[in-house]
């Protein structure tokens, strides 16, 4: 029985190379790990409280905030804020907070507030805001709502957004449509869609008027434009008639265009942040997009790109005017952070009118504050800033559903859309499944909240 392993002795050559590589590795480590530390900044930081600030932005949005951070650091000598661009911030923040090493300030999405708050991941800011004299009246109502949950204030907005129908005026003209009269109802949207769509000889789609999947960032929320809500207190309303109507509309897309043709069409789309963005190359004529789209148009679209903005049309019995998703980036202080007062000082700084206007102009967005200077709007580079701002003030501006199960709910809704688009379920069937699962999920979550609430409320009222 030959169980002796046949490993020959190392040749001298192999040994030499190995020792060589090993030594190089060991020598390289301190060099490489030490890269990127800024000694000049170290000196400046001495004596100050150093705050770690994580935010989700990169590119020009990050640059705008970096400018604000620099100004803050220069304006006083007690606090130094260290800005870090972090991808997948929701998950990372959760892991870091759970792991006991949270950043001092985090810039999360508004929709995360309920789940973080209910899971004791954030510090309530009521006291700190009161001390600085920050009140509800300072903000556009839609955004103040996002900051509050279960009776406490959890964060303050950094930059706001609304979403609207953004369309290519040149393509409208080419198709014989009036570029200054965008569609006002869903029926009209589909008329325009038919006129704008071009197909090739073999049925391949070359250009489409409107494609819900491009960019498809709010696939869970189509019901909003049909007057639907996704949660009503302790009830999930995914299967309510208004919401179902919206997804039945979605279902007409694979029926009309062919599911596989749509997939092929989308597979060939270029990078969003590049000149090959399908909206900029004219492959999609109308998109549901947010106020930030101007950033991308400015940097990537062809110089003769003509575009218009209008409220996304709504439909059916629930049709209302100027429906939009009003969301914002939120600055929060994770629980367990070591310097809440200093952190809040920075957050309050960002929320002062001149600084907020500076930040929002840098990110080419409007301001979430109730009052904004005329100069801000007049000199704003964004050609359609007033349309987006008007949408934010609309009574039909809503945020994401304020529920702690939103991540799971949204995942299920996205899966439902995926099934509808793949043709493996009708809108009703897909939504039935979401309804059943998420109702159970919500019931469990409400149980958990009932159990945890008394202790948590006591804890929060002390802070």
């Amino acid at each position, binding site marked *: *029985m030959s169980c002796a392993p046949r*490993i020959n002795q190392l040749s001298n050559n*192999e040994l030499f190379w190995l020792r060589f590589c090993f030594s190089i590795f060991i020598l*390289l480590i301190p060099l*490489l*790990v030490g*890269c990127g530390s800024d000694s000049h900044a170290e000196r400046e930081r001495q004596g100050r409280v150093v705050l770690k600030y994580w935010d989700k932005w990169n590119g020009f949005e990050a640059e705008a905030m970096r400018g604000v951070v620099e100004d803050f650091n220069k304006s006083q000598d007690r606090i130094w804020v260290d800005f870090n661009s972090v991808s997948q911030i929701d998950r990372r923040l959760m*892991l*870091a907070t759970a792991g006991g090493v949270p950043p001092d300030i985090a810039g999360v999405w508004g929709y995360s507030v309920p789940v973080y708050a209910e899971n004791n991941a954030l510090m309530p800011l009521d006291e700190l805001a009161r001390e600085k004299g920050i009140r509800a009246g300072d903000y556009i109502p839609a955004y103040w709502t996002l900051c509050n949950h279960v009776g406490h204030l959890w964060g303050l907005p950094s930059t706001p957004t609304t979403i609207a129908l953004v369309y290519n005026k040149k393509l409208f003209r080419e198709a014989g449509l009036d570029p200054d009269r965008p569609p006002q109802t869903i029926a009209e949207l589909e008329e325009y869609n038919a006129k704008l769509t071009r197909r090739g000889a073999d049925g391949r789609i070359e250009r489409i008027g409107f494609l819900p999947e491009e960019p498809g960032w709010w696939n869970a929320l189509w019901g909003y434009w049909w007057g639907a809500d996704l949660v009503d207190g302790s009830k999930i309303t995914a299967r309510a008639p208004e919401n179902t109507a919206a997804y039945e509309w979605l279902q007409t897309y694979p029926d009309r265009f062919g599911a596989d043709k749509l997939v092929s069409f989308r597979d060939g789309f270029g990078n969003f942040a590049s000149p090959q963005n399908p909206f900029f190359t004219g492959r999609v004529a109308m998109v549901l997009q947010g106020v930030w789209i101007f950033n991308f148009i400015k940097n990537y679209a062809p110089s003769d790109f003509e575009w218009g903005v209008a409220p996304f049309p709504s439909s059916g019995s629930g049709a209302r005017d100027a429906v939009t998703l009003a969301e914002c980036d939120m600055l929060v202080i994770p629980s367990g952070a070591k310097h809440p007062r200093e952190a809040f000082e920075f957050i309050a700084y960002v929320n002062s009118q001149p600084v907020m206007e500076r930040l929002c102009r840098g990110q080419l967005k409007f301001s979430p504050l109730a009052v904004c200077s005329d100069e801000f709007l007049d000199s704003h580079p964004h050609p359609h800033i007033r349309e987006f701002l008007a949408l934010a003030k609309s009574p039909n501006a809503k945020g994401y559903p304020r529920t702690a199960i939103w991540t799971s709910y949204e995942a299920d809704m996205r899966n439902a859309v995926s099934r509808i688009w793949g043709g493996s379920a009708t809108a009703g069937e897909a939504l039935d499944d979401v309804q059943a699962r998420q109702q159970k999920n919500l019931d469990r979550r409400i149980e958990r909240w009932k159990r945890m609430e008394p202790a948590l409320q006591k804890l929060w009222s002390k802070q």
Partner: protein
Amino acid sequence: MSQKKAHATQNLVVYIVLTIAALAFIAPLAWMFSTSLKPLQETMSLPPRWIPTEIQWKNYPEAIEEMKYFWRYTGNTLLVCVLSVFGTVSSSALVAYGFSRIEWRGRDQVFVVLLATMMIPFPVTMVPVYGLFKELGWIGTFKPLWAPAFFAGAFNVFLLRQFFLALPKDISEAARIDGCSEIGIFLRIILPLCKPALLVVALFQFLFSWNDFLGPLIFLTEQRDFTLALGLQSFQSQQGGTAWHHLMAASTLVLLPVLLLFFLTQKSFIEGISTSGGKN
């Protein structure tokens, strides 16, 4: 005569099949390298080209710059790898020695338990281990990535034990009669005979640590502390879409040290793998 001809046709068929298979296996890597040298528009061109119209070596420095902390990632990964290798080799050798060169009661039963632990999937232990490291205050540091290596993983112990068992018993016996302590025998006699096997364990551990993704994903929090694997994935998920040429360039760079190591130690690598699948 016909047997020779049958033999020759057989060989020809084998060559053809192997060549087709080899092309299929090498094509992805070649494609990765080719894409890494293309300008962005060409990455999405139809029909796809193998040789870019202009060879853009600058994709590499561009990718490194976009990844921001590439050199730090490399340093971090090297740190974790070197510490892991050291920990694994030393602890696995000790433990394998204990399971093979000393006769003690219950030894083989305990070894079966060790084998059984290979069946425990990491995801099962992930959450409590995360909690454990949190209590120790190690989340956000590199310790969770290399410290477990110092506690002898089952697979490496298994591998080294095979090797130790094959060494003749009398050399240990002779040393014991001479009054040598067990640890002395281990250090002065057995270990020097095992350099090739230790090298194999080191290589496997290096490869594992270089590739490890799930560990860094949950234990590292600061972007600048990421390892290359995590940094690459982070780079992929950065923007709304993907700049394939940069991503392929970055992937090639992450792959390169592994390839280098392989070509330097080919023989040991191959032989190590061959014996690991040996008689159970």
